[in-house]
């Protein structure tokens, strides 16, 4: 270490500072009050690390580095400006970019070092490019499905899991051969190419409802591949940033799969949408539902003391969040206590629904997650369900035959009156019948979420009639 020039020691100090700022950044993100400070800390850390790297004495040419930095910034700005409904696909796309960076650097590092690559180095390098390339194509596929460029329906075929696992197995075996014989350089493209194909195959059978889990899982892979890159380059900063990202993705994946009552392997290999179809088709409809008009709904709401609104992705699809805010304002003005109950998988990625409601100017202290709100339904006069279905299905609690049995749900059926805004009686995303709709206390409000909520606001006694 004695030959290290002083400027490089300075770089190491800069990386140390950046590392501390990154950890503080995530710590401050913990609560909404300090979260923006967290972003600032992250930005400073990034700036310090990048500037220090540019001072490296060994850099012989800056032209392409600067061109790339400018070009990346030009691409980055519109990606930071997307609509809030498009954040899930933007996030998937950024996982793809991150994985692309890691894979390209790993590939170049291999060819710069080969054939003399020590076994451990080759092992982490293999992990870097395998995880990186499968995350790259997998995330592109996920982004395509979320943007609805690709069909959202799961595509399955016989022997799919065997084919997929076989592909991954071959890549791992080839990586093992390379660890033992790094001089077999012609094998390297295999451990990039096969995972690229695997990434596509992995996402093909996954349906739209599982996207929150899949995005989180890809997030975790992206982090782990970056950490592996840190091992290859002997960069502690990168190891730590990758480990933090990997841990975050892992925690979110666990949250999401718990919220859907599924295991990882079930999400990746289960093809959810497909399994359900048969179960739901058999049920014959003889029960009747109660429906109500906007006037009736407005009358009940204005007489309530406590209202819990349960938004689902259907609300966002109908672009109803601003009308919901108007309803929130009108009810709050009457002294009615209005809260929102948010299921972890209410949006298309973890926390998505909170962002959509915050965008509509609904204060975040009224947005409660499932564990916080479930105790409050019993005291609520009205639970108003807007565009949510499966996450309110009481069958998940007691019906052992239900495909969603065991899934944690929002206990809307404990409220005195349940109102459900829904287009029709068609089954939800997973194609499962919802007994909530046939309860005596449930009123079905048939119509488009946006216009129905708008009508309720207009019909509220003493409200802003047109």
């Amino acid at each position, binding site marked *: 270490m004695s030959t290290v020039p002083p400027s490089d020691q300075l770089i190491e100090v800069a990386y140390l500072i*950046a590392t501390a700022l*990154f*950890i503080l950044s*995530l710590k401050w*993100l*913990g609560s*909404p009050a300090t*979260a923006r400070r967290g972003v600032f800390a*992250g930005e400073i*850390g*990034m700036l310090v*690390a*990048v500037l220090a790297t540019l001072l*490296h004495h*060994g*850099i012989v*040419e800056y032209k392409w*580095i600067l061109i*790339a930095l400018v*070009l990346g910034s030009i*691409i*980055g*700005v519109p*990606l*930071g400006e997307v609509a809030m409904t498009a954040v899930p696909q933007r*996030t998937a796309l*950024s996982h793809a*970019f*991150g994985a*692309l*960076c890691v894979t*390209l*650097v790993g590939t*170049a590092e291999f*060819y710069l070092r080969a054939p003399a690559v020590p076994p451990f180095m080759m092992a982490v390098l293999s992990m870097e490019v395998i995880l990186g390339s499968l995350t790259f194509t997998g995330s592109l596929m996920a982004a395509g499905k979320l943007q609805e460029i690709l069909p959202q329906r799961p595509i399955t075929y016989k022997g799919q899991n065997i084919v997929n696992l076989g592909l991954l197995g071959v890549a791992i075996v080839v990586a093992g051969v390379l660890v033992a014989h790094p001089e077999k350089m012609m094998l390297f493209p295999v451990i990039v190419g096969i995972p690229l194909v695997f990434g596509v195959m992995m996402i093909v059978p996954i349906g739209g409802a599982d996207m929150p889990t899949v995005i989180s899982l890809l997030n975790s892979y992206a*982090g782990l591949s970056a*950490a592996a*890159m840190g*091992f290859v380059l*002997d960069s*502690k900063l*990168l190891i*730590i*940033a*990758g*480990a*933090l990202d990997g*841990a975050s993705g892992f*925690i*979110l994946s666990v*949250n999401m799969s718990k919220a859907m009552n599924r295991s990882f392997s079930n999400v990746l290999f289960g093809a959810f949408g497909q399994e359900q179809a048969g179960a739901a088709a058999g049920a014959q409809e003889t029960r009747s539902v109660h429906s109500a008009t906007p006037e009736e709904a407005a009358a009940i709401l204005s007489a309530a003391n406590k209202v819990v609104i349960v938004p689902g992705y259907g609300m966002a699809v109908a672009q109803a969040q601003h009308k919901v805010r108007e309803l929130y304002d009108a009810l709050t003005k009457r002294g009615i206590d209005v809260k929102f109950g948010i299921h*972890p998988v209410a949006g298309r*990625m*973890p*926390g998505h629904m*909170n*962002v959509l409601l915050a965008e509509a*100017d609904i*204060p975040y202290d009224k947005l409660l*997650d499932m564990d916080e709100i479930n105790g409050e339904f019993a005291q609520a006069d009205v639970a108003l369900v807007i565009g949510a279905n499966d996450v309110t299905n009481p069958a998940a609690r007691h019906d052992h035959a239900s495909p969603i049995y065991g899934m944690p749900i929002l206990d809307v059926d404990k409220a005195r009156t349940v109102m459900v805004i829904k287009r029709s009686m068609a089954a939800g995303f997973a194609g499962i019948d919802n007994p909530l709709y046939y309860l005596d206390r449930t009123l079905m409000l048939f119509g488009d979420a946006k216009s129905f909520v708008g009508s309720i606001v207009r019909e509220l006694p003493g409200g802003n009639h047109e």
Partner: protein
Amino acid sequence: MKLDLLTSLYVFMLAAFIGFEVIRRVSPLLHTPLMSLTNALDAIAVVGAILLAGLHHEHGALLAKVLGTIAIVAATSNIVGGFLITDRMLRMFKTSGRRKP
């Protein structure tokens, strides 16, 4: 070399523990900004890409430059886009106390 490796493994392990503890405390309210922020931080991989593209290499210089440059573009777009959108989202979160009547 062997010792460096072990140090790296220690660093990874400790960072993973810190990650779990810190991120467990992030409110579910902010899970979307959390993902976009960690994504931006993860793009610190750009430092590896910069050195790959900029350092002098005895052989494979062209490959290093081409792949390194593309990698810088990809990572930089994540840095800029990730920080921008995280801050945009966080600006939207307001309490009922701070809202104008």
